[in-house]
């Protein structure tokens, strides 16, 4: 059993008005040192899979086919062993 933790964010080349708004919110709170803020999605999947390499390949395919849109988004994920 594995757990996959997936982050999906807008590509650097894509304007993220939500991130910009949060950054200016932080600035008005006094947090002046934030030069950039990007908002994304965080997903946690539990996988009934015993082989790490296969789990990685599966999650990568899931990201490419559904969880992220390659036109606008990038994704990264970590996979760890999870308790049965």
């Amino acid at each position, binding site marked *: 059993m594995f757990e996959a933790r997936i982050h999906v964010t807008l590509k650097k*080349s*894509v*304007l993220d008005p939500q991130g910009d708004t949060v950054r200016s919110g932080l600035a008005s709170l006094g947090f002046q040192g934030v030069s950039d803020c990007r908002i994304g*999605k965080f997903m946690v999947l539990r996988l009934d899979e015993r082989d790490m390499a296969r789990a990685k390949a599966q999650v990568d395919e899931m990201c490419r086919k559904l969880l992220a*849109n390659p*036109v*606008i988004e990038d994704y990264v994920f970590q996979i760890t062993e999870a308790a049965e």
Partner: protein
Amino acid sequence: MKWGVLIFPGTWSHQDFAHVFQDVLKVDWDYIWHKETSVAGYDCLFLPGGFAHGDYLRCGAIARFSPVMDAVIRFAREGGPVMGSCNGFQILCEAGLLPGALLRNTSLQYRCRWVHIRTERCDTPFTRAARPGQVLKIPISHGEGRYFAPPETLARLRRNGQIVFRYSTPDGQITDAANPNGALENIAGVCNEGRNVLGLMPHPERASEALLGSEDGRLLFESVLTAALRR
């Protein structure tokens, strides 16, 4: 000629299309539920606006996997005319039938108002009845309509003449002020390379009677009626 109006769970503009087809244009039409696996017998397909499958994950991302979409993709690949407006445009992009993607409006606000769009291309089944450069007054109603495509895709769209509509002023000027959502190059609608699939954010079905403030949207449907479709 028979037209099909697709309904996904969460679609909400289908009755507006139905009203225009039934009462204004008096064409033969029917609804197509998303569980259908065939679109045989239809000559033109319309994907209305709404929030198909709740727009969970991304707008249109789940609708792409509805059973009917395989049939829609086959229909489109064979040259059948397909039009998606608003959420329908988002679904067509997610399904890979149209290039690019639609992102959150730059304003972060839902925009529901009249806009003007300039017809850039009249060589699609949906714009054949328009004059080149004709400005249409049609409403928008969306929170995620900012058209985006990577630079190389955008260059290809320009080269192939796939940019069909741009947001403009009433007299056809392409300005930042006329752009309601931050779309790249004021893009309001694009077609595929085969020119038979059109997606646009504005709602032509809500501007097909003078009583509603504009009849300009009807021109897209009348184009289909007058088009000599190679089917």
